[in-house]
């Protein structure tokens, strides 16, 4: 059996739309480095696999006042957090629809350098006309095209990571050569959406290839997920839906010629923990009231005690419904502190979760070997 995976998503004032109005939220601190550092350190104290830092080019929800918007570039936040953490994986979302694959590749490679091998990348697409209008280069496209483009972008990004062989820098004083140019490779990618010549300007990152995360909710996302993802995220309202999804995505990974045991399937779960189930539900109800309507996420939801959530995690994991979860606390930072101080100690007691990181890199945490460059002879 695989290892249980637990990650946390740290977006906004919490996952619940009413969170920013809650007394325990800090919407004004969303642009402060210190806020993100505290969250990442809490996640690291809990030895979570990674923090997912969401991002989008979409306009903020209309209900949010400017004082509560505070969304920063996710790769920037991850980089700012990297030097003051040491074990937690850092997985920013970066979209592929309006960005340059060349820039994405070197940004994530560099995140891998500044974190000493703890970088991942959640590849996402920009679906809306509102996002397209921020760039003015093209209109919104159907999901099929967006995910085909995302697949090409991941192909290019990962080829660029490989485009320098690990031992390309030779510093050979006798011949005056700093680099062995035979170990630098153009990637010569040409596709329907762009072409990229390469090689990268950034040498191969510490992990070789940082982990690629793809969320699969739509059908068109299956193709890039099966082909490229090290981690698949999905929504599932119940155990059966999750188990069925996991079986199908594993089959798709295998059909793409990859080892399904090397791909972790993580289910999103929105949580509110409390001393008692009633206590947790009361806070959720309060958030609903603050948000102006009862809110139920697409994926599963849990309001209750840490041991109740541990039961759910254990059941889904043992039933083969998930390799783990991406927890989306309804309210931050309190919801993450509750994970670290409530859920994780219970899981550790049950021998379901690690007490320390097994290595230094995110690949070490996931038990994945460092891949050789595809261009190495």
């Amino acid at each position, binding site marked *: 059996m695989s290892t249980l995976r637990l990650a946390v998503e740290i977006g906004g004032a919490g996952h619940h739309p009413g969170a920013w109005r809650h007394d325990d939220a800090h919407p004004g601190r969303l*642009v*402060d*480095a210190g806020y993100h550092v505290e969250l990442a350190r809490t996640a690291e104290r809990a030895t979570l696999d990674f923090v997912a830092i969401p991002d989008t*080019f979409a*306009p*903020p929800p209309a209900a949010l006042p*400017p*004082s509560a*918007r*505070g*969304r*920063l*570039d996710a*790769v*920037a*936040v991850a*980089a*700012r*957090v*990297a*030097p*003051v953490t040491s074990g937690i994986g850092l997985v920013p979302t970066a979209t592929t629809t*309006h*960005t*340059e694959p*060349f*820039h994405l590749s*070197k*940004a994530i*490679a*560099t*995140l891998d*350098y*500044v974190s*000493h091998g703890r970088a991942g990348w959640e590849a996402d697409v920009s679906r809306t006309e*509102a996002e397209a*209008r*921020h*760039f*003015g280069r093209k209109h919104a496209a159907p999901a099929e095209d967006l995910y085909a483009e995302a697949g090409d972008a991941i192909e290019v990004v990962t080829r660029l990571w490989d485009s*320098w062989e690990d031992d390309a820098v030779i*510093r050979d*004083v006798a*011949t*005056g*050569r*700093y*680099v*062995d*140019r035979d170990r*630098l490779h153009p990637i010569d990618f040409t596709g329907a959406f*762009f*072409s*990229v*010549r*390469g*090689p990268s*300007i*950034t*040498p191969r990152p510490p992990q070789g290839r940082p982990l690629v995360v793809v969320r699969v909710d739509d059908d068109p996302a299956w193709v890039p997920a099966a082909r490229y993802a090290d981690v698949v995220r999905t929504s599932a309202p119940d155990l059966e839906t999750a188990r069925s999804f996991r079986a199908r995505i594993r089959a798709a990974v295998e059909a793409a010629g990859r080892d399904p045991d090397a791909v972790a399937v993580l289910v999103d779960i929105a949580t509110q923990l409390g001393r008692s189930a009633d206590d947790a539900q009361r806070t959720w109800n309060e958030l609903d009231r603050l948000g102006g309507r009862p809110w139920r996420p697409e994926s599963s939801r849990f309001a209750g005690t840490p041991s109740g959530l541990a039961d759910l995690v254990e059941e889904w994991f043992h039933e083969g419904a998930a390799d783990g979860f991406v927890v989306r606390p309804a309210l931050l930072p309190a919801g993450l502190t509750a994970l670290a101080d409530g859920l994780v100690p219970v899981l550790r007691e049950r021998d379901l979760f690690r007490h320390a990181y097994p290595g230094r890199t995110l690949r070490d945490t996931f038990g994945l070997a460092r891949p050789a460059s595809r261009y190495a002879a």
Partner: protein
Amino acid sequence: MERPLKQIHLAAHFPGVNNTTVWSDPAAGSQIEFDSFVHLARTAERGLFDFFFLAEGLRLREHRGRIHDLDVVGRPDTLTVLNALAAVTTHLGLAGTVNTTFNEPYELARQFASLDHLSAGRAAWNMVTSSDAFTGENFRRGGYLDHADRYGRAAETIATARELWDAPNGRFTHHGPQFDIAGVFDVPRSPQGHPVLIQAGDSDAGRDFGAAHADAIFTIHSTLEAGQAFHADMRARLLRHRRGADELRILPGATFVLGDTDADAHERADVIRHQQVGPQTAIAFLEQIWGRDLSAHDPDGPLPDVDPDPDAVITRGRVRHGDPAAVAKLWRETAEAKKLSIRELVIELTGRQSFVGSPATVAAQIDEYVQSDACDGFILVPHLTPAGLDEFVDTVVPLLQERGSFRTSYTGTTLRDHLGLRRPDHAAGRAAAS
């Protein structure tokens, strides 16, 4: 009455991917590991520098159709390094070079506003624009930009970015020849209002762009008189753009070699020049101007008899200076007059350091440049990673402080504070953008 001493502004340039950076020295560390960047940035902050500076290049240089392998090759992503450095420094400004040709204003404005927030007001953007189809092959939009459109795109990029930074409640609409965009900008106004804008470029159009838009100019180092002429020219241009002379800092790039005595320093400078221009590098320089394969020539021998091929461009991804025939003529005359071999000639003509001497000599020279209005300070380019700035900070900075022309502590927290630049208010930003 004497005027009060001008305060010197200093910045630290991370050693770049050209032959100024000596990689063959045993003390030369990694050009890519984060620890190298941390060391240099912390040294600059210990020396109370205004900012740390990263250059950018988006395609590996090629020479005679292959990747140029004699200099440092490769570098990390500019903005990602600067955001990480914000975590290990507290006052130092963080300046990044980012191209406007291969990026869109919405993303750029968001990235620099993010850096400004995450560094609590220390971000600077060295804006460069290229029309380079060679680099364009790495990007989806390719090298589509006409050379004449370069400054048009740069000007519209900065105007658009400022509209986004100033947008009331984030709402913006921009219709222009380069960009037609509208929507909501989601990053709240950052600590500096606008990140500091740096412009590099010495052409007439570049100078005018700098006078119109920039907070600081990164220029090339030259003689004191040339610096004074440049300073006066920029002051006139600032007036034409209705800006005050105190709204722009002029900061030439400068190299330096220190020694216990001036004689020691000159000896070390000669050793460093020979490290920078090895035998293979000397031939590569010559080939770049001659446009021919000269690999059969002895670097310790005389210049080749053949003339340059006027049409050949054998180096790509590097700025080209001047007409090859004219340059070759000058080189030949210099070689004959001074009886120089190929390598010695290249050292003579390309390798001169800006400041060579004892700490006292270098401090006096730097101060003289600033006090006589040849510039407002320097962007120092060490030849070694990561320790190339240590000696300067330990020996020259205290002497500049003794002279009363360099700060003894940071008096503000933002880069605008260090540079003595005003924080733009919303209304001014909107007026400038309209």
